[in-house]
C-alpha cells in the first residue's frame, strides 16, 4: 500500500512538473499579449487591454504577413513531400541502383544546420555577391539573368529541401511494411499498374501522408533560420521572423506585447494541430498494414530510367550536403569574400581559423554551448524517459493528458517559446535564470520534450509487458525494475535521443536569440548569426565548416548506434 502511494506521488510529481513547464510559459505568453505595459518587467494585471491585438491585426501589412506565411509554408511542405515521396519510392519500391547511398545519405542531411545552408545559398545566389550570379555576369555580360535568393521562392526551395529527410524517414517504413498482397489482389482483380497505384497504394498511404504533411507544415511554420537569413534582408516577413523583428530589430523600444499577440496564432495552431495530429496518427496506425516480416514488396522496374533516377537522387544529396560544405570550406580560406577564380585560390590563407582561436568570444561561446547542449540533452533524456514511463506503462489517471502536454511544445516555435520564457524569467525574478545559459537549456528541454517522449514511447512499447512483470514476480520492486530492466533495454534509445538533442540544440538560433543577453549566455548559433549580420563572412565560414564537420561525425555516430539498436530489437523481440 505504502509502495503504491509512493508511486502515485511520483506520478503526480512528474505530471505537475510537465504541466508547469509547458503551461507556465504559455500562460505568460497569453497574459503578456494583453499587457499594455511596454516592458515585461512592468507587467501588472491592472494594465490589460486589447491594444496589442488591435495594433497588430488591424495593420494592413499583417495581411501580407499571412499571405507570405501561407505561401511559404504550403510551398515548402508541398515541395518537401513530393521530393520525399519520390525518394522513398525510388529506394523502397523500384530497382534503382546504389540505394545504400540514399539510405545512408538522406538522413545524414539532417546534420546540416539550416542557418548554414541558407548562408551557403546566399553566397551562391545573392544578386550582388553570389558566386553563381558573378559568373553569369562574367560570361553573359551585365544583362545576364540574376538568380535572387532573397525571395519567397528562395525560401520555399531551401525549406522544401530541408524538409525531405524527416519525411523520408517517416515514409520509408510505411512503404516497406505495406503488404504487397493488397496490391497484388488489385492486380489480379484486373487493375492496371497505374490504377493500382492510385486506387490502392496511395489510398492506403493517404492518412499517413496527410500526417506527414501536417508535421512538415508545422516544421516549416516554426523554422526561423531560413526566413531569417533569406527573408529579413529583403523585408519579406513570415510569422517567425516578424515576431523576432518586433522584439529585436525595432529601432525604438520593442513592443513585446505585440509580439505576444502575433504569437497567439501559433498557440491556436499548436492546439489545433496537436488534436488533429494525434487523431490522424491513430488513424494511420489503424491503416498501416504491417504483416509478416518476410514480405518484400515487388519492385517496379525502372528500365532505362534506372541510371537517370539514381543521378537525380544523388543530385539531391549534392544540393543538401556537398554544396553547402564545399562553399563554406572554400569561403573559410578567403581573406575577403570573392567568387571562385584562379586568383582567389592564390590568396587563400588559414588566417580565419587562426583568428577564431585568438578571438575570446569564440572560446566563451564554445564553453557556453558545451554546457548548454550537455545539460539540455541529459535533462531531455531523463524527463522524457520518466514521462513516457508514466504514459506507456502506468495506469495513472492523466496519462493521456500528460502525453499530449508533452507534445504541445512541438507546435510552438522556438521564437515564441523564447518570448514566453523571456516573460517568465523576468517575472519570476527570484529564480536567477534570466540571461544565463540555463534559461536556454530549460527552454530547449521543453521544446525537445515532444521528440524525446515520441521516441521513448515507441521504444517502451517495443518492450514486452511481460518483461516488466517477470521482474516483479522475481521480487524486484518498481524502481529496481526500472533500473534493472527498463534502463538497460532503453540504453540505445537514450543515446540516440541524447545525440539528436545535441545535434539540434547546438545550431538552433531562434530561441537563444530572444533569450541572449550579452556574452554571459552567448552560444555558438548566436555568435554565428551576429557575425554574419555584421558581415564577417569568411570567419563565419570557418566556424561553420568546423561545425558542419562535427555535426556530420555525430550523425554518423547516431547511425551506427541506430544499427546496433536495430540488431538488439530483432533478437529481443
Amino acid at each position, binding site marked *: 500500500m505504502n509502495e503504491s502511494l509512493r508511486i502515485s506521488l511520483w506520478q503526480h510529481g512528474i505530471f505537475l512538473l510537465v504541466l508547469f513547464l509547458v503551461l507556465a510559459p504559455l500562460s505568460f505568453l497569453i497574459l503578456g499579449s494583453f499587457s499594455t505595459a511596454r516592458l515585461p518587467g512592468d507587467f501588472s494585471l491592472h494594465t490589460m487591454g486589447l491594444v496589442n491585438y488591435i495594433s497588430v491585426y488591424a495593420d494592413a501589412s499583417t495581411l501580407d504577413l499571412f499571405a507570405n506565411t501561407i505561401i511559404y509554408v504550403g510551398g515548402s511542405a508541398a515541395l518537401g513531400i513530393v521530393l520525399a515521396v519520390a525518394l522513398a519510392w525510388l529506394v523502397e519500391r523500384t530497382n534503382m541502383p546504389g540505394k545504400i547511398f540514399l539510405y545512408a545519405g538522406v538522413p545524414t542531411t539532417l546534420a546540416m544546420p539550416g542557418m548554414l545552408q541558407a548562408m551557403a545559398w546566399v553566397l551562391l545566389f545573392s544578386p550582388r555577391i553570389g558566386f553563381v550570379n558573378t559568373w553569369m555576369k562574367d560570361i553573359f555580360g551585365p544583362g545576364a539573368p540574376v538568380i535572387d535568393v532573397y525571395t519567397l521562392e528562395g525560401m520555399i526551395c531551401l525549406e522544401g529541401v530541408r524538409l525531405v529527410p524527416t519525411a523520408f524517414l517517416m515514409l520509408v517504413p510505411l512503404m516497406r511494411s505495406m503488404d504487397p498482397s493488397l496490391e497484388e489482389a488489385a492486380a489480379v482483380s484486373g487493375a492496371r499498374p497505374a490504377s493500382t497505384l492510385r486506387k490502392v497504394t496511395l489510398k492506403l498511404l493517404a492518412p499517413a501522408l496527410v500526417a506527414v504533411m501536417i508535421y512538415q507544415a508545422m516544421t516549416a511554420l516554426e523554422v526561423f533560420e531560413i526566413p531569417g537569413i533569406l527573408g529579413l534582408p529583403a523585408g519579406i516577413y513570415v510569422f517567425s521572423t516578424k515576431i523576432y523583428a518586433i522584439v529585436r530589430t525595432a529601432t525604438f523600444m520593442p513592443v513585446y506585447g505585440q509580439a505576444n499577440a502575433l504569437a497567439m496564432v501559433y498557440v491556436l495552431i499548436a492546439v489545433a494541430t496537436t488534436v488533429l495530429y494525434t487523431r490522424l496518427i491513430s488513424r494511420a496506425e489503424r491503416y498501416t498494414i504491417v504483416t509478416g516480416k518476410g514480405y518484400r514488396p515487388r519492385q517496379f522496374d525502372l528500365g532505362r530510367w534506372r541510371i537517370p533516377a539514381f543521378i537525380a537522387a544523388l543530385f539531391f544529396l549534392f544540393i543538401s550536403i556537398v554544396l553547402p560544405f564545399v562553399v563554406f570550406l572554400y569561403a573559410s580560406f578567403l581573406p575577403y569574400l570573392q567568387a571562385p577564380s584562379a586568383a582567389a585560390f592564390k590568396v587563400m590563407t588559414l588566417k580565419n581559423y587562426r583568428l577564431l582561436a585568438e578571438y575570446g568570444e569564440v572560446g566563451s561561446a564554445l564553453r557556453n554551448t558545451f554546457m548548454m547542449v550537455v545539460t539540455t540533452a541529459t535533462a531531455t533524456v531523463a524527463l522524457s524517459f520518466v514521462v513516457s514511463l508514466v504514459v506507456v506503462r502506468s495506469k495513472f489517471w492523466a496519462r493521456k493528458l500528460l502525453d499530449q502536454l508533452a507534445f504541445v511544445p512541438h507546435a510552438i516555435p522556438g521564437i515564441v517559446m523564447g518570448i514566453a520564457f523571456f516573460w517568465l524569467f523576468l517575472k519570476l525574478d527570484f529564480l536567477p535564470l534570466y540571461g544565463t545559459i540555463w534559461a536556454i537549456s530549460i527552454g530547449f528541454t521543453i521544446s525537445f520534450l515532444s521528440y524525446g517522449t515520441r521516441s521513448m514511447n515507441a521504444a517502451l512499447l517495443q518492450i514486452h509487458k*511481460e518483461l516488466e*512483470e517477470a521482474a*516483479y*514476480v*522475481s*521480487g*524486484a*520492486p518498481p524502481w*529496481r525494475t526500472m533500473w534493472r530492466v527498463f534502463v538497460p533495454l532503453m540504453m540505445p534509445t537514450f543515446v540516440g535521443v541524447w545525440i539528436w538533442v545535441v545535434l539540434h540544440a547546438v545550431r538552433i538560433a531562434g530561441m537563444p536569440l530572444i533569450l541572449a543577453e550579452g556574452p554571459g549566455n552567448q552560444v555558438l548559433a548566436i555568435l554565428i548569426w551576429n557575425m554574419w549580420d555584421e558581415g564577417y563572412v569568411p570567419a563565419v565560414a570557418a566556424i561553420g565548416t568546423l561545425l558542419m564537420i562535427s555535426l556530420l561525425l555525430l550523425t554518423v555516430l547516431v547511425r551506427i548506434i541506430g544499427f546496433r539498436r536495430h540488431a538488439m530489437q530483432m*533478437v529481443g523481440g
Partner: protein
Amino acid sequence: MIRIEDLHVRYQTERGEVYAVRGIDLDVKQGQFFTLLGPSGCGKTTTLRSVAGLERPYQGEIVVGDQLVLSCRRNVVVPPYKRDIGMVFQSYAIWPHLNVFENVAFPLREMKKSSSGDIRSRVRKALALVQLDGLEDRPAPFLSGGQQQRLALARALVKEPRVLLLDEPLSNLDAKLREETRFELRELVKRLGITTLYVTHDQLEALTMSDVIAVMDGGQIVQRGTPHDIYAAPKNRFVASFIGLSNFLEGRVKALGAPGEVETSSGVIKCLLPDGAAAGDEVIVVIRPEDVTLNDGAAGANENMLEGKIEAIVFMGDALECQVAVGAKAIRLKLHPSSAVAKGSTVRLKLPAASCRAVRA
C-alpha cells in the same frame, strides 16, 4: 496452498467495462498440479495474474501458502514482488540484455541475503534442473524456443517458491517438442513437490498433466475434477463439447431409475440421469464417439440399439470416422480403419447405457 475466494476482476477500457472473472473459488492443495482449462478469453490468464498480483481484482480474497496476499474487504494488496511465487509467462519474458546466468540470477539478486557464491551455486542447480547447464554465458536471445522455455522455468524455480504459476508455457513450442515437454514438466514439478497452477486452452495438456482440472467459461468455473472425471462425466454440454468429441441428443426424461430413459428424436435412450432429475425435464444425452460400436445382435438389458444410414465416412489414419443418420440427428462414431463399411448402407449402433450420460439442457 492456494486458496481463491469469490474472485471478481473487471477491466476498464475505452469501450466500457470487461467483466473478465466473475466469482471464482478454488483451492489447490500442497503439491498439487492444478489446471485452469477453457476457451480463449474465458479469464484463465486473468485469474492466474491475480494470484501473481499483476492484476487488481475488485472483489475477492487470495491466500498463497500461509500469506494472505489479497483481500479486497480488508484492503490487503501484497505487491507481486513480495509474494512467494515463481511464474512462467506465455512469451517467456526472457530479458534480452542479460545472459542465461544473469536471467536466472535476477530473482536471487533481489533477495537481500544471498552472497555471490550462494547465487552461483543456486543458479547452477536451477539450470541443471532444466538441463541448461553449460549455457550460462550464452546471451539469452540466442536460445531456441525450447531452451527459452526451460530458462524461464529455471528463473521461476530458482528462488524455490512454494507456488509455481504457468501461463500456457508450451503454446509457443512446435507440436513435437510440446509433447515431450508435457511429461518432462510434470515430472519436474512433481519431483520438486511444488504446488503448480497451470493455465492452458489445450485439453490434451490438461488431461495428461493435471491432478485436478477446473474448466472455465465466461469468467466462471463450470466443473472441476480429475482428468478422468471431467472426461467421463462432463457436467454440461459446454464441458462435453470443449473436451473431446461428443454426440448430443436432446430430449426429455421419460422414466427415472438406473439407468433412466430419455425420449429423443432418435428414439428412447437408456442412460445415466443427472442428480435430481424429474420426469419431463429437458436434458441432453452425451455420447462419446468411441463408445458407439456397430453391432447386429439384439440389445442387452443395459444397452441401446439404434438403426441408421451411413451418411459420410472420413479416413483419419488411425480411425474411420462415420456419420450415421439416426432419425433427424447424425451420430458420429469411430471405427477401426480396416472396418468394412459402405456409405449409404444401413447399420445398427450399440450404445451401452453406462456411457450415455444425460446432462441438464
